[in-house]
């Protein structure tokens, strides 16, 4: 018992006080991309050409689809002018698919659910996680929200063991053909009203597996999605930020 008490003292208090403050990200962390189209050379398409998932569209400026982006640095390495780079901003989640397009304008972050949904879920949200072809990186960094560091329970969010106990689904992976039916059944087993959260490039667009006949280009191919959390995988803070914004626990105006 003494050993346990000593260990307890040694391990200390480890929970971040997010969202009151944001922990420092590693200096090489790749958050929201920053595009300065003014620096582009006329007719240059280097970034778009090297992108493994076709996330970048050049023409009338440069647009980057966060839903496809793997945050892999191919574009930043290829750009001769430094017109595209990754910033430190971890806030990436959005409520609408089109809000994931990075253009150089101010970003539209995830909106809070409507009043009725917030009344139902705002203080208690039970989620069922379905991995449908995920590589276990998104799964791992969703799971990490349950550790003492993020302590998801203090926000009233909990992962539950049955869809019938859940208010919604959190989906990872491109949705493989072999998981399509299981995902559909799980979705149907969640009582209405329900919400669906797609986490990671695979669940939003298919990621590196986009257009494979073995997979379905993400969750929205088979069920409606209410929150998109981009990344490959998203940082745990990116996921938590998205969840809290959706529940109205971070005001939309708060850009911390």
């Amino acid at each position: 018992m003494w050993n346990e008490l000593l260990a307890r003292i040694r391990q200390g208090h480890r929970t971040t006080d997010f969202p009151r403050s944001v922990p420092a990200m590693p200096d090489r962390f790749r958050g929201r991309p920053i595009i300065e189209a003014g620096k582009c050379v006329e007719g240059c398409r280097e970034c778009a050409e090297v992108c493994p998932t076709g996330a970048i569209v050049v023409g009338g400026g440069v647009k980057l689809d966060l839903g496809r982006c793997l945050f892999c640095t191919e574009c930043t390495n290829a750009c001769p002018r430094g017109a595209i780079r990754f910033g430190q901003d971890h806030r990436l989640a959005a409520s609408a698919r089109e809000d994931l397009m990075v253009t150089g304008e101010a970003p539209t972050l995830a909106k809070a659910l409507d009043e009725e949904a917030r009344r139902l879920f705002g203080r208690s949200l039970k989620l069922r996680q379905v991995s449908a072809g995920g590589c276990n990186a998104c799964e791992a960094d969703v799971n990490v929200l349950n550790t003492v560091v993020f302590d998801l329970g203090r926000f009233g969010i909990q992962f539950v063991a049955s869809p019938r106990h859940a208010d919604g689904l959190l989906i990872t992976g491109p949705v493989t053909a072999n998981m399509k039916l299981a995902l559909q059944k799980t979705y149907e087993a969640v009582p209405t009203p329900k919400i669906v959260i797609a986490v990671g490039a695979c669940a939003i667009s298919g990621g590196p597996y986009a257009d494979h006949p073995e997979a379905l280009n993400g969750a929205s191919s088979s069920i409606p999605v209410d929150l998109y959390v981009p990344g490959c995988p998203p940082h745990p803070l990116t996921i938590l930020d998205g969840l809290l914004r959706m529940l109205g626990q971070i005001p939309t105006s708060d850009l911390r």
Partner: protein
Amino acid sequence: MSVLVLRNGEAADVRKIPSLSVTDFRRVVLEEVARGSRIAAFFGRPDHERMRLVAVLANAAEATLSLCSAEVGDAYPSLTPDCPQAHWFEREIQEQWGVRPEGHPWLKPIRFHRPYRGGSVGEVLPGATDFFRVEGEEVHEVAVGPVHAGIIEPGHFRFQCHGEKVFHLEISLGYQHRGAERALAGGPGKRSIPIVETVAGDTTIGHALAYAEALEGLGRTRVSARAQALRGIALELERLANHAGDVGALANDVGYLPTAAYCGRIRGDFLNLTALLCGNRFGRGFVRPGGVGFDLEPARASQLLERLQRALEDVRVAVNLLWDTSSVMARFEGTGEVSRQTCEELGLVGPAARASGVERDARQDFPAGIFRFAHIPVSTCDSGDVYARAYVRWLEIQRSVAFIRDQVASLPSGETLVKTAPPGPDRICVSLVEGWRGEICHVATTDEAGRFAAYKIVDPSFHNWIGLAMALRGQQISDFPLCNKSFNLSYCGHDL
């Protein structure tokens, strides 16, 4: 010569692989296995209008990889009855190419997809197969999955039970099949690296390293000593994060929450060290063919060492609580035993094999990169139970930290990334990497234009899922989560 002998990461002309008759092929494989080799890979590949079987036999004592092949028709006599470790490979060959291993005792799909050749078949439904059944009035069946209760990947488990006692567990996978291996053919291309980095996302460094070493072998690219050392550091950081997480998860499954809570956090501390190195907690973007994508400057190196030391001290305190707590030890000891003989026969790899006393570790047996110069002692335990699988992880945590310290202290100077030469035409290269789950094997073959004609991936989970099934024999069904966690295998790494 009946085999082509290669070293780990060495390429050769693919036409030099001896083409044997099926009878000779079987004889050579069985003889090699009898003298201590293990099947590292065994697969089919189209060769003009015919099919060719290729076997890669790994001999640890000689650090050699022996390759041989045979042209087959639609069927051949199965190796499995004489050589059980071929069983999963032969099921894969039948599923992918429709080549039937006759006399296979257990022939059914492993991933549930349409065959790669041959006429159209009807819809292939996952899990639609004849499960092994134990008959009897008091025998009952428990089915679990594909969607599980926690935040984990999908798979289906079918238990044949008598009361609480498990007679047999059958594991049916394929739900994660994304076409990863198939998509690599025709490469290298823009998506090759994102795909190998997500074959098993918790093993990003391991698979990316196996891919990079194969590609460098095919094009004869020489990687700097500095990049090799940095790759080794990243590989061991990946092992540290996963091993620390696994030990915590084992504590959680026996209801011992202090270690579960501490290790859950410490796992993140190790992941954050990988993020310190490359910005991503899973090592995305770090390993690149030709070297590494990021350098470790002196200031970053000292920060790494300092945080590594703190994490080691924290994990030491957290893990040692387990061995001192009798209620934990009572649940770990004697649970989910796998004998050394079973490990050898089934060709298990990684901590699961080492926990049964099998001294098997690709870092020692088939050293490549930094491991040719710096050796990590192989950690083994004898009891083959959950305790042994936990304890081997703890030993490896300590040895990985020591290795990283040594490497950071003596980091050679040099370029971190050199340009890779394109793969040569008609070549084959086998690369083995000891990932945290065990041996990762990649076999790259190029066509006459130097593109990948085929790219074969064997994740350690491919060998080890059957080990979990064996561990459950005669156990209480309530011990399944604990046994499962003690293996902690990859679903997507298996399903590809």
